[in-house]
């Protein structure tokens, strides 16, 4: 077996960079921090590529094995139930190492130009490293509890990065919202882990996901409210996953998270953290498939609903980053659908493979879209589509790379998104027609909203700009070009030989009728967008008018935020928290103070008895004695 001990460095380098920049970053020039961060990530990136090469291509082409190059006990609960920390290499974690380090490196690099001159530049880079460390720790986790630990850390670093412009109230609010919503979902995750470990007495992924394992026998026959105990556990773990992946109804934090700097959106809120949920489901896929198929179906439907729902909202938004945010929701929905419709093993596991494939390609083209958006925002100093138009003349590199990404997400061959999306559709077609049609319609909506964005930014009417928009500097263009090449060509990677549900390669069959159908709806969407937005005209407004209230509701994201606000502010704050605070101060404390007051008052009253008046004492004595004697006589008699 090959030696993989160097993979530890991939995880530790970002951590030490974080400590270094966090503790000493203010001692030197900001740019130094930027270069330290970028170089550190560069090393991690190269090591990840070496790992991937060694894992996938250096061996013979048979089944891949799970390799654990590093593992130690971090905390023990009992003699048998322990939290392990370590590194697990299998196809999906190796793939994720590549995805995370690639996108992180590109974001680091891009930020050298984008964030130049910002106050807190070194803080920014230390947080980026912290995030990368957390995300890498999450993907290599060999242990469910380690995954949970890094879930929390990822959430915290996301909080720090969304709130990077911490003097801006909207950024602070968005950061808080993201943290609290995902924390709520993590609460579900934690309870799920507790239930699962109670029955299986292990957190180890390899033990849990071994097909045909008997570890779940303890839970046999135990049901609660119509679902088995393991279904509850896995369902609750999916709640955690849905929180991180911003699936409906936890999606509300993601659009607001766009308050963070744009490279952060590209890294965290498009390519890596938000797919943590998909990764979690994939990591536990055999458990879902063999033990709780009911939950797996739920995964599929939640994904399907979110993808359609988000795509509809994306059509109406004007802030380009929010369009991309809703697009991300929609695409993650695809990945969930892929898992939800998949079977285990061989060609039947097409959905699993396609989902991972889509995760990979989506990371490339969505990060590219975000970095492109960053480049545009850098040039025109606005997020709003209304302030843009005709930019293709000023920003040729941004234009072309953005177009590549847009074609990729629309599923136009030969760009990468075509391959992965088409395979998800094929998998859905075999298993679940309802989900297939949902995703098919969503594919059309996707190409429409993304080209609405594209035409509005790069074509349409030339705006009056404060100063002429200019192309971004070289340091920002290189990541764009790199990612554009990736977005164009990674579709040709033979994923079915690399990342499969049972870690054995299989042959895919091309379903030409599906290919034609999916490409044509993509082209239809693009054509419709071209018709409406190529030149500025009154058609879009007229259509919006025609939809009337429906348009308004969609524009306001179906008022989900308002519903949340009502529940948290009105109900929890006013009907729970406020009464408790009042109750504590007035009833409980009032009672305690009351006891003291009564004591004081009583002693005040009875202190008169101790008057020193001998006759009074004698009277009380005689009267008392009489009462005692009389009552004794009464009882005896």
């Amino acid at each position: 077996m090959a030696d993989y001990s160097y993979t530890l460095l991939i995880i530790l380098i970002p951590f030490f960079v974080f400590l270094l920049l966090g503790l000493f970053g203010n001692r030197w020039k900001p740019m130094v921090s930027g270069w330290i961060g970028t170089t550190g990530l560069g090393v991690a990136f190269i090591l990840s590529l070496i790992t991937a090469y060694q894992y996938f291509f250096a061996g013979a082409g048979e089944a891949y094995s799970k390799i654990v190059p590093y593992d130690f006990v971090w905390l023990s609960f009992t003699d048998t139930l322990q939290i392990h920390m370590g590194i697990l290499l299998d196809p999906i974690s190796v793939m994720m190492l590549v995805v995370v380090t690639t996108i992180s490196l590109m974001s680091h690099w891009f930020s050298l130009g984008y964030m130049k001159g910002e106050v807190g530049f070194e803080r920014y880079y230390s947080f980026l490293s912290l995030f990368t460390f957390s995300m890498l720790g999450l993907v290599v986790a060999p242990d469910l509890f380690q995954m949970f630990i890094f879930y929390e850390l990822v959430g915290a670093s996301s909080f720090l990065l969304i709130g990077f412009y911490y003097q801006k109230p909207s950024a602070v609010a968005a950061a808080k919202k993201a943290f609290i919503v995902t924390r709520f979902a993590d609460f579900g995750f934690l309870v799920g882990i507790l239930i699962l470990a109670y029955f299986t007495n292990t957190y180890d992924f390899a033990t849990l996901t071994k097909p045909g394992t008997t570890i779940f026998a303890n839970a046999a026959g135990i049901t609660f409210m119509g679902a088995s105990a393991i279904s509850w556990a896995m369902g609750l773990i999916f709640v955690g996953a849905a929180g991180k992946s911003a699936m409906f109804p936890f999606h509300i934090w993601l659009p607001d998270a766009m308050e963070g700097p744009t490279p952060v959106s590209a890294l965290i809120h498009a390519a890596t953290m938000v797919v943590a949920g998909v990764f979690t489901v994939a990591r536990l896929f055999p458990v879902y498939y063999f033990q709780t198929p009911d939950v797996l179906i739920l995964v599929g439907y939640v994904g399907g609903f979110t993808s359609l729902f988000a795509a509809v909202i994306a059509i109406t938004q004007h802030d380009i980053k929010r369009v991309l945010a809703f697009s991300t929701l929609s695409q993650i929905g695809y990945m969930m659908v892929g898992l939800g419709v998949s079977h285990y093993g061989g060609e039947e596991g097409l959905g699993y493979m396609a989902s991972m494939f889509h995760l990979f390609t989506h990371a490339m083209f969505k990060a590219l879209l975000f970095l492109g958006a960053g480049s545009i925002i850098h040039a025109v100093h606005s997020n709003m589509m209304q302030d843009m138009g005709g930019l293709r003349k000023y920003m040729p590199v941004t234009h072309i790379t953005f177009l590549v990404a847009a074609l990729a997400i629309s599923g136009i061959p030969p760009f990468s998104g075509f391959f992965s999306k088409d395979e998800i559709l094929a998998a859905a077609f075999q298993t679940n027609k309802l989900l297939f049609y949902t995703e098919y319609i969503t594919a059309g909506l996707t190409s429409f909203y993304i080209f609405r964005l594209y035409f509005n930014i790069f074509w349409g009417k030339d705006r009056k700009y404060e100063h002429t928009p200019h192309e971004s500097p070289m340091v920002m263009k290189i990541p764009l070009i790199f990612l554009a090449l990736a977005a164009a060509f990674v579709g040709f990677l033979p994923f079915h030989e690399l990342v499969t549900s049972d870690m054995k390669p299989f042959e895919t069959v091309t379903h030409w009728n599906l290919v034609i159908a999916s490409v044509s709806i993509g082209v239809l969407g693009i054509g419709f967008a071209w018709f409406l937005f190529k030149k500025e005209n009154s058609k879009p407004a007229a259509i919006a008018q025609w939809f009337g209230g429906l348009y308004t509701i969609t524009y306001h994201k179906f008022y989900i935020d308002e519903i949340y606000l009502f529940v948290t502010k009105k109900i929890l704050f006013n009907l729970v928290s406020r009464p408790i605070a009042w109750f504590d101060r007035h009833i409980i404390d009032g009672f305690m103070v009351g006891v003291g007051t009564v004591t004081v008052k009583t002693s005040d009253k009875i202190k008169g008895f101790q008057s020193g008046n001998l006759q009074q004492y004698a009277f009380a004595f005689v009267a008392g004695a009489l009462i005692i004697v009389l009552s004794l006589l009464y009882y005896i008699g």
Partner: protein
Amino acid sequence: MSFLNLFVAVPVLTVLGIMFTKDLKGTRIVSAIGMGIQLILAVYLMVFYMSQAGVNNLHEIIFQSDSVWFPSLNIHYYVGVDGIASAMILLTAIVIFAGVFASWKVEFLPREFFISLIVLATGVFGFFISLDLFTMLLYYEIAVIPMYLLIGIWGSGPKEKSAMKLTLMLMAGSALLIAGLLGLYFNSSAEGGPLTFNLIEISKITIPITAQRLFFPLTFIGFGVLGALFPFHTWSPDGHASAPTAVSMLHAGVLMKLGAYGCFRIAIFLMPEAAHEMSWFFIILTATSVIYGAFGAIQQKDLKYINAYSSVSHVGLILFGLLMMNSTAIDGAIMQMISHGLMTALFFALIGMVYGRTHTRNVNEMGGLLKIIPFLGVMYILAGFASLGLPGFSGFVAEMTIFVGAFFHNDMFHRVATIIVVSSIVVTAVYVLRVVGIMLLGPVRHEEHLKLKDATWFEKVSTITLLVSMAGIGLYPLWLSDTILGSLQPIMEKITMYLH
């Protein structure tokens, strides 16, 4: 003489030393040196214990020494520590060390202040090294009395009222406690032998169940008042709000843990059958504490009230873990004692430092302070993260261990109680981030705050000591948890005896 007596001797010598100092500077230096030595001793004790336990795997009580004190009543001065007591001593030493540096700026009657503070700590150290119920009670009272003076004289706001409330409620707790301990004493001999206060001796017999039913609640509530058991927690918000910084640190950081430790070491350990019988009632109370404290904290405006309610919530979790009565949950509860002790001490230290600059503790009157006082701001955020149970800090480890341990009970009552308690992680995040958001982030609210100065060196010593300790447990918790689990073995044998 046992090595352990040094833990009482060093503070006493420090107090004597302070009496002979002439000026403020001398007072500070003597206090700092004394408590520095104490900290070194505590670290040595912990390391020594761990090496002993590791080599022999015996987990016995070390440094035992027993001398008769009142022969007629068979009261002994009996000391000895296991891993749990060593950890509590280490906690106390860290907090008092940080507390001395946090009190650097006390200028009103400094000698008297430091003397009271260190006398208080002496009581706590004495409590943790003792194994004789009478001596423990004595030290406990030594710790409570200076509190009244410290709050009443050096406090702020309605300090006399708060001091009175706190002392009276704790004294009421003591009254129950004395009754409980006497009950143990008079039942301490099975076959008419001599009565004893010796904790280890008592643990070897089974107290009659009828006596347990009477004295367990007395002892548990008696210590529980100190541990802010709902509904006897109301001294805590007022007391902390009025107390000077170091007193809040010591009180929330250590004294409240002393209550929880007593609940565990005396009430549950000596009377497990009654504890098991009545646990359902106290589980309801503690689970209520956890959620109630957290929701209470959301509404508060005063930083110290927020932290006091947060402490009610976190300390409720300690008692909750203890009542689960299995080694995992108790291990978690003890780690939570240490973790919360460090964390809340850090919080109170920071609140004192912020208050010393802004002269307000009302969060709504602050804003954007991170920009102006970055060191204190970052420390506050880190303390907040620790409080909401972020991995990497001790709170996460302790809470998770409690949750996992509590989940070993598979009946519906325990399940529901546990899930309610687990849900506190969300509410905690809400109130922590609310304070951070209002106070530290956002735009600067008051022009005059722009002139504030960041932390001085002694403030850095104080806060960094606490933070590093928290991270030391949070990043690699195994040393602590294994020590505690080891020391729990003999205790668990006694506690789970009723099962056999």
